[in-house]
């Protein structure tokens, strides 16, 4: 809904800085479907219209040319782009077999202090409900 690829349109999307736990509010300035810059949220009670260097300039990774754009499976030691279906079938098959052979606790999941609440919730649900293990942790301690 908020993405916009129409030429010549500028939009400001309110969101939260992805770096430290301070959680400053900011606007992403979107031009022609690309992030053109960042503006601080002046109504946010924590950052009150200011940001640090990471908040201002840390968005450039989003459109970096090195972003991963296809699932990769290592075949003969070389990463090979494959379809989602092939990648997920491969993972599902291997996980099912390992669980059968060695039990649910032969699986561990490293969750992410960078991802959203919803994604972390779904990740631990995958470990607990699908795999059947409590082997899920993230780098809270690091």
């Amino acid at each position, binding site marked *: 809904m908020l993405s916009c690829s129409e030429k010549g349109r500028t939009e400001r999307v309110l*969101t939260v800085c992805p770096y430290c736990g301070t959680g400053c509010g900011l606007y992403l300035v979107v031009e022609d479907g690309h992030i053109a810059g960042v503006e601080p949220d002046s109504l946010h009670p924590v950052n009150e219209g200011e940001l640090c260097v990471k908040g201002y300039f840390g*968005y450039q990774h989003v459109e970096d040319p090195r972003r991963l754009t296809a699932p*990769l499976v290592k075949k003969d030691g070389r990463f090979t782009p494959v379809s989602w279906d092939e990648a997920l079938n491969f993972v599902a098959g291997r996980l099912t077999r*390992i669980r059968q052979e060695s039990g649910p606790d032969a*699986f561990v999941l490293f969750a992410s202090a960078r991802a959203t*609440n*919803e*994604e972390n919730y779904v990740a631990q649900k995958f470990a607990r*409900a699908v795999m059947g293990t409590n082997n899920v942790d993230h780098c809270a301690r690091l």
Partner: protein
Amino acid sequence: MTNSIPEISQHTDVIFIIGSNTAECHPLVARHVIKAKERGAKLIVADPRLTEMANKADIWLRVPAGYNISLINGLLHVIVKEKLYNSDFVQNYTEGFDDLEKAVERYTPAYVEGLTGIPQQDLVEAARLFARAKNAAILYCMGVTQFSYGTGTVVSLSNLAVITGNLGRPGTGVNPLRGQNNVQGACDMGCLPNLLPGYLAVTDEGYRARFEKEWHVKLPSKPGLRIPEVADAILGGRVRAAYVFGENPVMSDPDSDHLRHAFEHLDLLVVQDIFLTETARLAHVVLPAACWGEKEGTFTNTERRVQRVRKAVNPPGEARDDWWIFSALAQKMDYGRMNYLHPQEIWDEVRRLVPEKFGGITHSRLEKVRGINWPCPAEDHPGTPILYQGGKFATPSGKANLRPVFFDPVRIPEEVGEFKNALAGKITELPDEEYPFTLTTGRRGYHYHTGTMTRKSWPITQVTPEQLIEINPRDARKLGIEDGDFVRLSTRRGSIAAKAWVTERVPEKTVFTTFHFWEANVNELTVNSTDPAACIPEFKVAAAKVEKITPAEFQAILQEKKKKYLVDLEAEVAGRLKSGRREAHV
């Protein structure tokens, strides 16, 4: 945090910062501290390094890395001896004061000076300043927790807040500054081996039943492995498959060579990320994830403020939201209760399962406000920026527990046995003849964690392009090292090389560096010994040695690291993906 950030600039009279490089790591929290100072508040900073914050302090306590408990016990000693504590609060809302009083008896200012070198007068003044404040707030970070006795240190800080009555009111509290944007949320959502979402113990049958009903499965009751235990579990053959999403453990974990080695033994390593990170390069399968700015959902900051994050642009190529990937995989594995269409559905499931904390935080409310602090049990509940209001604590008795905490660098002090609730710690690896320095670790202001994101921003790489190892001028002189010389830094686990930064920022016999750069990743050197309760690795102290090396030696080490981290693979794969995409478009 027990309290919220804006309270600092509005209500706090004395701010005690310990083990937090706030100006560099949490700049917009530091801003509230500076605003408080402008209003006349006083600042006490305890840190081994002369950080920007220490520089602005009214009292700087230069505590050696690892000696926080001695310092805090010293403060408690003075406050108890001079009867500066809040006796009403202690009487009405706490238990265990007598034991605490006995336990800190020994930590006289003279004794603490002997242990830490902190001048007695400074300690006494800091104690008086803190105890006499109307509202005093404690801010801390990994400089407190990243020790094998980190839990003990946090408990001693809470002792300090409790006996002075600094909890449950605006501008007070014990406030951890969380390093990562959503580390709070990942904990809240149950990404912990012993806790379900909402901090509900997996060992509790009633809590499990709550989730079993919604999820339609029987849940395991045995707590799982913690990250620092994973490497040995893999090498011991107990773990065969690992799934890593949005983390880079071969850079960020302690004794990282050991973990990399373990990962190479896995039958299946799946890495889901936005770049081909150092960890992803080792994977069997890499799944491309959508990134911040490309997806909808919520983050929870260090104040427990749940906030909306929104999508601004589309993800590149075939990259997908993390929740979509897990849902699709679950369906392939014949689990039917993860078919989500939008993050809001997922959040509503969380609200249903943990109504006592998140029930009132709806997406539609979040559209109208800048976040809501949990606990927020109902839609007409305003949220809870301040915990423990009215002196009610989350203990069986409803009172705050005071627990004695002991520390000795060499051995666990014997007195521990005399108290029923006591905690104690010692340093795992002390400097010796061969490794005479104390190595401590952290971050730089402009970079973040393993550098996966910030090293892709040109303004940031321009100001902070490379790793530096901080060393005190007196030590440098003895070793013939000048500012900008190449040095090799080694511990019993490995060595790295970088330029020396000769600076008074670090005290004598201490060196400091970061884990932002694969070229010289300090986590190849750190100790993998952990706190028994929280399982936090002891990042902040290890015994190390420093040697001057030639530029040629530096280059040789650099090439070695480049090979080890498969550095060229990222560009190679990115190149192939790009040309592949172009072909697909034609």
